[in-house]
């Protein structure tokens, strides 16, 4: 129908948006911050190649401690989210039937269509000194003065777990959905206790969902900004905040670029490790979610 040359031209035109998009908005910008992260200021407005920004990261305790803290707390948040979400996903996938099931799943989805800022505002209103929880505690006589529940690690973890739950429940429920009831029954018939059946049959079957959910929750948590800053206040100390401070507040772009590369490295390394350990591919993992 078409000559070879015409079809080549068509292909080129069809490919143009993808190439412009990935080239101008993804690849070149990342090359730019990679280059920027290796440049040092040697004199005003004069920059030279050097490892100074990365050295600064390792020598200044505030920076690497914030980085380690962000990584550690993100792993903790991911684990907590998994533990909290598993019974819910199991209930939605295995126990609830028909209409109840659809409603339970929809109710899970609803809060996550709402902006992260609105959800964080809700937690701030609940937890702060003049907030709802503090007020209720005083009303029932459990406290005789206002209680400050905000601006500590507990509040940060709470907010981050809350934000991650949906991204854990949906892949878990999807994975558990395909578990044959007969297999579970066979486990009980062979004398397995509830715990044995859960550990030997249900959890191995849910593994793809566990991996997908954990990877997504980890990525979202490590890259979060608003939740740790707003719920943690001065004690939030999240690595994204350091990137923001270098770029926007201090205008030290090379340092901020180095931090950005480190965050990207951390996030990619954990995703890669998670996929490697469980033999999943990125495409199928994202499809789970």
């Amino acid at each position, binding site marked *: 129908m078409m000559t070879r040359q015409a079809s080549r031209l068509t292909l080129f035109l069809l490919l143009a948006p993808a190439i412009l998009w990935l080239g101008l908005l993804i690849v070149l910008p990342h090359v730019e911050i990679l280059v920027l992260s290796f440049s040092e200021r040697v004199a005003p407005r004069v920059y030279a190649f050097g490892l100074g920004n990365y050295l600064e990261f390792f020598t200044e305790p505030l920076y690497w401690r914030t980085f380690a803290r962000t990584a550690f707390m993100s792993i903790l948040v991911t684990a907590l989210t998994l533990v909290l979400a598993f019974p819910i996903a199991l209930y939605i996938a295995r*126990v609830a039937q028909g209409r109840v099931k659809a409603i339970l799943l929809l109710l899970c989805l609803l809060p996550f269509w709402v902006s992260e800022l609105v959800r964080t*505002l809700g937690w701030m209103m609940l937890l702060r000194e003049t907030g709802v929880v503090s007020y209720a505690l005083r009303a029932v006589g459990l406290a005789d003065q206002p209680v400050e529940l905000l601006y500590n690690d507990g509040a940060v973890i709470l907010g981050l777990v809350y934000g991650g739950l949906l991204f854990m429940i949906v892949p878990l429920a999807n994975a558990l959905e395909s578990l044959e009831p007969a297999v579970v029954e066979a486990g009980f018939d062979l004398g397995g206790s509830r715990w044995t059946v859960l550990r030997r049959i249900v959890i191995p079957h849910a593994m793809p969902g566990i991996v997908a959910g954990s990877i997504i929750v980890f990525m979202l948590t490590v890259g979060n900004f608003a939740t740790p800053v707003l719920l943690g206040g001065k004690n939030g100390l999240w690595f994204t905040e350091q990137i923001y401070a270098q770029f926007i507040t201090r205008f030290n772009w090379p340092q901020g670029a180095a931090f950005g590369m480190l*965050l990207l490295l951390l996030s990619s390394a954990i995703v890669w490790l998670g996929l490697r350990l469980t033999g999943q591919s990125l495409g199928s993992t994202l499809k789970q979610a």
Partner: protein
Amino acid sequence: MNRPSLAWKLYIAAFYLFLFAPLLVVAIFAFNASPFPSPPWRGFTLEWFTGSGAVFGKPGVLADPIWLDSIGNSFKVAIPVALLAVALGTVNAWVLERAEFRGKTLLAMMMLWPLVIPGVVLGISILAFFSRVANGLEDFFQTDLDLLRPGLPLVILGQLSFILTIATLIIAARLRKFDRSLEEAAFDLGASRARVLRTITLPFLSPALIGAGLVALLMSFENFNTTLMLVGSEPPLPITMYGQMREGATPAINAVSLMLMLGVGGIASLFALTSKAER
């Protein structure tokens, strides 16, 4: 396992309470007749929506230029992002599903990348790259290029960088289900390529196009991380909310949040309806 224990049921109930408590608190206190967004309850008012500021000294959302401008800025970003995401996402979906060329697997994989890059890193990389481009072009042409400096056009590009992946995936999923014999039949009946596209293929894709547009609209409206790095002097809604939350806001922020929840709920149910129509 099919007979859930009482403890399990109680856990489910507690979980859903936990899920909705923050949203309910935000919604309820939008109507509290108090200058602060906190208890005690001082009576019902609509002052934080429509009030001019005569009662509490601070205006409600619909009379406050700060909020109105932010909502306007959000639309100025979200509408172009949604339109571009649908248009370019359709072309990308076509490339993924129909075209054959070397390196297609690599391209398909690269299209997923934006989803695994933290939003803050996307923001700073685009900021740094476009500043360099702007500096280069300004030296060359000896003019100011504000378009590439932090501001709404850059926010649009930053959000598009990852929203386009999602639009592409939604549209490609629909295109995969398309029965190509329908197109062949139309060609056999003498239709031109453009006509087949217009009367057969695009109508089939339309639920996915609308769905992708709505999702893009929502994601753009709610994006915070990438936007924060690229914003200039015209903040979209989430940036203004963030600023107010740090400084301590009036219940007007609850009112704007409630309006956002209702708007988002409306769009989400529209999306649910279009994806139901697909089946």
